[in-house]
């Protein structure tokens, strides 16, 4: 959707984010030097195995980390209004007042467990009205009730459910109510951490379609976090792959699918069975990620990587443009790209970017 690269303005720009749980030798290095940029109106997917640090990025970047989590380094630039880059603030340096103003009104979060965090003794209407009132939205109770109804309709629930209590709603409906709550204050950025993981595929797709439709209408940006890469491929503009606390690859979704550049991405793509063609035995990803209290010296994926070189276990690869360059919008952290020859699965030609109305990019390189 946002293949238009000309005015890609960052709304949330995470640079060199490091997050530990605990201190000293016992610390878990949950996020290490993560760079992630969310542009206005863009849907960025963040995928990786559980424990790779996805949620920690979301909590760390919004300063919602709980003890013993600490941000040890990094910058998180947030630019609240289009065309006003001078209003950029660093969330990690912001004062408590600035933070309160940002959260929920500008950056909204929907967490996986959120579904169960609805107040069981309050009706859906009361919870929506409370959120609106707490942020001074709506001149009167009547206006807020009307707005609550609108919000429910927005996420595909009929208004006559306003008086329902959480236990009267299915899991999918509760998750939609959470999304309505997140959208109540017309945020510019919506961060969703596994919002559909507990739901069945039909409900999941309906919710995802709704999110995408709302994004098109309301123009917010989405950071969509999931362990299920297959979900992101159809919906995200850009995908970031995380492994053992680091972002190991970022690319436009189509490119990532047709031409993965990191062996871990290639392995993830081989982890979900296809709906077409011959049935072949697939292996998933044997082995398990490293203990993040003692991250290995080199690439954390090296011991599970089919193609690892000597260098991989010694030196940490940095996220940079791969050997086969596209339009400069993809990056990978893998030493194989400095070799003369790439192993077959990582050498696929770059697929053409389908940008509506735009000239094909990348060819001019």
């Amino acid at each position, binding site marked *: 959707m946002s293949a238009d690269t000309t005015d890609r303005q960052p709304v949330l720009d995470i640079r060199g984010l490091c997050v530990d749980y605990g201190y000293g030798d016992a610390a878990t290095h949950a996020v290490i030097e993560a760079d992630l940029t969310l542009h206005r109106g863009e849907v960025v997917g963040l995928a990786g*195995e*559980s424990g790779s640090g996805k949620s920690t990025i979301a909590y760390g970047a919004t300063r919602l980390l709980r003890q013993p989590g600490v941000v040890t380094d990094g910058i998180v630039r947030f630019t609240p209004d289009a065309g006003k880059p001078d209003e950029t603030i660093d969330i990690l340096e912001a004062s408590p007042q600035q933070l309160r103003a940002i959260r929920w009104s500008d950056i909204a979060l929907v967490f996986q467990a959120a579904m169960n965090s609805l107040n069981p003794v309050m009706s859906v209407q009361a919870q929506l009205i409370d959120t609106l009132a707490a942020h001074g939205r709506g001149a009167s109770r009547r206006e807020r009730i009307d707005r609550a109804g609108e919000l429910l309709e927005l996420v595909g629930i009929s208004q006559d459910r306003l008086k329902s209590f959480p236990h009267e709603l*299915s*899991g*999918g409906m509760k998750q939609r109510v959470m999304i309505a709550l997140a959208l109540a204050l017309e945020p510019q950025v919506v961060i969703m951490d596994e919002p559909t993981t507990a*739901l*069945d*595929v*039909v*409900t*999941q*797709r*309906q919710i995802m*379609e709704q999110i995408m439709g709302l994004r098109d209408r309301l123009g917010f940006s989405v950071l969509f976090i999931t*362990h*299920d*890469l*297959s*979900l992101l*491929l*159809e*919906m995200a503009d850009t995908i970031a792959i995380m492994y053992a606390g680091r972002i190991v690859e970022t690319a436009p979704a189509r490119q990532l*699918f047709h031409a993965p550049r990191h062996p871990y991405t290639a*392995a*993830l793509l081989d*982890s*979900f*069975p*296809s*709906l*077409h063609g011959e*049935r072949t*035995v*697939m*292996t*998933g*990803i*044997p082995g*398990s990620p490293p203990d993040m209290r003692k991250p290995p010296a080199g690439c954390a994926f090296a011991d599970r990587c089919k193609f690892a070189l000597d260098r991989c276990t010694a030196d940490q690869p940095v996220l940079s443009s791969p050997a086969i360059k596209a339009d400069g919008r993809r990056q990978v952290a893998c030493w194989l790209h400095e070799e003369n020859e790439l192993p077959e699965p990582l050498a696929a030609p770059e697929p053409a970017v389908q940008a509506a109305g735009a000239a094909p990019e990348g060819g001019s390189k």
Partner: protein
Amino acid sequence: MTDANPETQAVPVVNRPRGEVVLEAKGLTKHFKVRSKPQRGQRRTRGIVHACEDVNLTLEAGRVTAVVGESGSGKTTVSRMLAQLTKPTSGTITLEGKPAKGYGLRAYRHKVQMVFQDPFASLNPVHSVRYHLARPLKLHKRAGAGKEALAQAVEALLTRVKLAPTNQYIDKLPHELSGGQRQRVAIARALAAGPTVLLADEPISMLDVSIRLGILNLLGELRDNEKLAMLYVTHDIASARYFADTMTVMYAGRVVESGPSLDVTDNPQHPYTRLLLDAAPDPERETPATMQARGSAPSLIDPPSGCRFHPRCPLALPICSEQQPPDISVGEGHVAACWLRHDDYKNTTTTATAGDSPA
């Protein structure tokens, strides 16, 4: 792992031919009696949840049968009835040629075991892996006499579910294991009884995508090497296509389509099967799928008349709301309960009908 030490008896010696019918269910029906909450000014009413209606299923040695459907379609109710955890309202279950009712509960459990969705909830947090496996081994007399034999049997089980080296796992508590490892322990515990039938209710839904295939491949090996008859319950039709030999698609308590897995997924004949396929993530799709049948599953207290899918069906005909469609043969072993496949109505639709896509 058929090469594990046979003296431990943990690996059953099976000479069962692949395809032999092991468990058969006919006309399985479950109606739950429920009381609704009293509404203001009204009396408490009674209702009946029609959770499962007239389901036929056959589980064969060395084969996996998948039951696929969205939540609330009755999959768990079916598997619980097959496990004799829930008493059917009507219908019969036959195990190895004998009525299930004729077995004592322990004898039945000895042959029919279940693996649940949440490996965390199904393991006791205060007990070690060893305890979880030793208990059913003793209960079903699956290990030789003495401590040593029991320990060996436990290790053999862990090896069969690929938790090796076993000493890394045997004395761990559930919370010290990853989700995938816990599910392997749950499978090992089911195997401890020496079953011929394994009922797996969403065994991978709660696991990370990257380890799901490992669990499915393990179950696939047990099917192939030990000729277990398996029921695989899932809402994910892609995993059923990958793993199952035959597939039964359920909607709102009824079977809407069944047949060989690839026939069902590659040539779906019921609009609901089509919906499940459209809903599944599919990166190979060039344009985003448009799901035709929005909305959600109906109330089973007062299920829709005729075909239960008709209120959501984009292709519904008048007859669909009036009469339950019969089972119609649409291919070898492939059956769809849909009026659109009936000779009298086949040519009624003008729109591109679901399932007309080439195989």
